[in-house]
């Protein structure tokens, strides 16, 4: 399988000469096509910085990030914007749906700004809605939907452009456990049926145990990797909890 994402010795410093903060201290890993990877770590561990660097919102200080064969650390401002639009999909913790648009329109917007034909848009919106189980709510506005439905609409918006990589930042953060489960299951189906590649940042062990592999970050370094292998959900969950408790140390915020 081809590798979609390759991070090579990524470093990120904040601040100036007098007061330097090292957010990422040489992180290297890769994600294969069709893989569902979780990133876990305590607050301040650098996981959000990592996600920002990968999603081209932030720039690295040194090191390289290759997505779909292209080195995003060497692209200009302009080509980054178009790269972000064409090759990446985003899912945010707080849904980020436009309150003035219906679910259908929210999903379609991702395609209209890419200048696709109306027929193609219609077809693909319906298809994405089918996979994520939101066909019945397409005509509703965000304020008429539940949190889980909203997040799945956001998911549909992220995947509809067939991005090389979907980046999800704490997607279950604002959901109750039932909606979270439904969302995570639809993510799995996405990976299985559409061969989507997902990189999900979370600090919820339950959310993480749906992944194929988990990267643990601590103090800006890759601390541990945990592949799912042939574990059952329960076994995988227990292993994750074990690592998390190691990870947290005295500044644990995952209880």
């Amino acid at each position, binding site marked *: 399988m081809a590798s979609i994402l390759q991070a090579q010795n990524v470093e990120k410093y904040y601040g100036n000469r007098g007061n330097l903060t090292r957010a990422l201290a040489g992180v290297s890993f890769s994600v294969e096509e069709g893989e569902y990877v979780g990133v876990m770590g305590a607050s301040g561990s650098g996981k959000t910085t990592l996600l920002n660097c990968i999603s081209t919102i932030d720039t690295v200080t040194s090191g390289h990030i290759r997505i779909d064969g292209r080195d995003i650390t060497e692209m200009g401002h302009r080509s980054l914007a178009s790269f972000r639009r064409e090759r990446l999909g985003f899912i945010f913790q707080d849904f980020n749906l436009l309150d003035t648009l219906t679910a259908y329109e929210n999903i379609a917007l991702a395609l209209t*700004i890419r200048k696709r034909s109306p027929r193609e848009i219609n077809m693909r919106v319906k298809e994405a809605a089918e996979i994520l189980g939101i066909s019945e709510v397409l005509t509703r506005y965000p304020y008429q939907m539940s949190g889980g439905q909203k997040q799945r609409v956001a998911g549909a918006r992220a995947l509809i452009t067939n991005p090389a990589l979907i980046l999800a930042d704490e997607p279950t953060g604002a959901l109750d456990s039932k909606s979270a489960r439904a969302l995570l299951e639809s993510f799995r189906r996405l990976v299985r049926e559409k061969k989507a590649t997902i990189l999900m940042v979370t600090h919820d062990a339950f959310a993480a145990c749906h992944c194929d592999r988990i990267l643990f970050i601590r103090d800006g370094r890759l601390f541990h990797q945990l592949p799912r292998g042939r574990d059952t959900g329960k076994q995988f969950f227990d292993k994750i909890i074990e690592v998390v408790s190691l990870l947290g140390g005295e500044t644990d915020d995952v209880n």
Partner: protein
Amino acid sequence: MMSIKLALRNVRKSLRDYLIYFLTLSLGVCIFYAFNSIESQQAVMEMTGSQMAALRLLSRIMNTFSVFVSVILSFLILYANGFLIKRRKKEFGLYMILGMEKWMTARILLFETLFVGVISLFAGLLLGVFLSQGMAVATARLLGAGIGSFRFVFSFSALAKTAGYFGLAFVFALLFNIEMLRRQKLIDLLYAAKKSEYFRAPRPGLSVLIFLLSLCCLGLSYKLVMANGLIASQGILTVCIVLGGAGTFLFFFSLSGFFLKLVQQSKRLYLKGLNMFILRQIASKINTAYVTMTLVCLMLFVSICTLSSGMGLADALSAELRGNTPFDATFSVRAADKSPDGAYTGVDLLAVARERGFDPGAGAYAAVRCYSADAPVVLRAEGVEKTVYPDFMKLSDFNAVLALQGIAPISLGADEYALNSGVHNEKWQRMLADYEAGGELELAGKRLRAAGDGLYAYTTEVSSIKDFTILAVVPDELLSDAPVKQDLLHINYPPGDGAYEKRCVSALLGFAPGGLEGNLETKVRLMEYSHSTTTTIAYLAIYLGVVSLLMAATVLAIGQLSEAGDNAGRYGLLRKIGVEDRMINTALFTQILICFGVPALPALVHAAVGIRAASKFVDIFGEMNILGSSLVAAFGIVTIYCMYFFATYAGSKRIVNKEYAHQRRITENE
């Protein structure tokens, strides 16, 4: 000291937020000053006593209306100020969390208001002073006064008044701000930005229906106005206004839903770029802002109408005057309305004039006589017959009147008559064009028939309004026994004699022996009177028109800017899902353009109908050339409106891009 520093920095920082505030204030101050400095403009004019009196009257009228205008402008200042405060609630919350007392926050606010107030007051006054230089020339021309050597016009009293009124408005704004701060809870200040507006989905099906209904209302109202004009009965006019107002309201109420439905029909248009987003954006906005839109539309309508037809009316009045003064003076004597016996046997006006120490002989003159007789004529035009009761004049007298104007005499056969009316209006012109034949006229036992081209439209006397009477011109001998109605003495002054007018006026003005009524109209006096009227009308129209335009534009701009906060989140979201800056700016531009255009278009249509109706009304006074003045008015309106549009765009762009720019700066600084 710290508060001053903070306040200064705040003003500099949010300069673009203050732009609308600044614009409204400066323009308000400018126009207020200019129209209040009229009296001091006499410094550059060379005026007669009556022109001076006219200027004083004008100045007094402007002062009276200024009170009204100042109330409106104060309201606008308060409105704009309220918006600024709302936008900065969080900042004030932060000051308070840092341990600042409320009175210290209030002091920062005080200094900020003061800075902006003083700056815009200065800018406005500066503009106003420049404007009043130009206005002095315009006033002189409108009043028909001469312009002396150039001198800088500055009115200290207008300055003091402007500063006083606006100072008062600032004090109100300040009190309002402090009261607002005092009442707010810290938590509300800090979380002010988080409270998003309650969004309600439109109901497209219903809105199509309402939209059609609104068009019906407007159509009916237009039709009524066009059919009946402005002199329709009070009842019909009220119905028109109610229908028009309701129609406009329903129009804006349903417009967004209707338009959305319409565009959604075309998937190609709807699913293109950010069209869908822009449409929804506007739909959600107009959905809540239809009341504002209606008000803005009506204010624009008033502004366009007053500006163009006010100036048009002024034009019409002065154009008419030129037509109404074929001679330098007309002195006329007739029986007074309430004379005891009513019988008038005629007065020799030349003798009267000489007796009173004025000999018209130095110039050219014509003394003529009008007779009355109970002899109706039937006119036939466009197949409709109309009976008129004309006054009568001898052919020789009529020709003398024409000769004094340098017009060739007319001739009549022994059994012919001709008709003349000084009214140049459309109706008479049409009658002239379609004149088939007059009926026969029976006078002194003789039957007369209409002469071949027996319908004339000459002005036969100097008078302040159009002469509506119809004059029948007949052979001299037929009137020898007819009762005299009026004696007229038309005079043309000898060229170069400046004192002639004065002699004439002092001799003949106020001549009224028992039972008689004398009337002297001179060209000079009419001109001065008319100039005073036209100037007053034109200036009032401009003053009120511009103020209502300012009001409309400010309300609209601030409405847009207050929404920009909500929009910032939405536009930020677009950026997150990969929309380019250029596309976002275009969308923002389009959105604001539509919001400025939507109330303007119906206002234009309303105004077009209103002006047409008004021009029919004005037509009574003379033809109104609405085109020239409309173009001037349009230019002014568009300029001010565009200024507000761009200021709003700049402000919204700043609000929308703020977060993002901030973020980018951080990353680029590394």
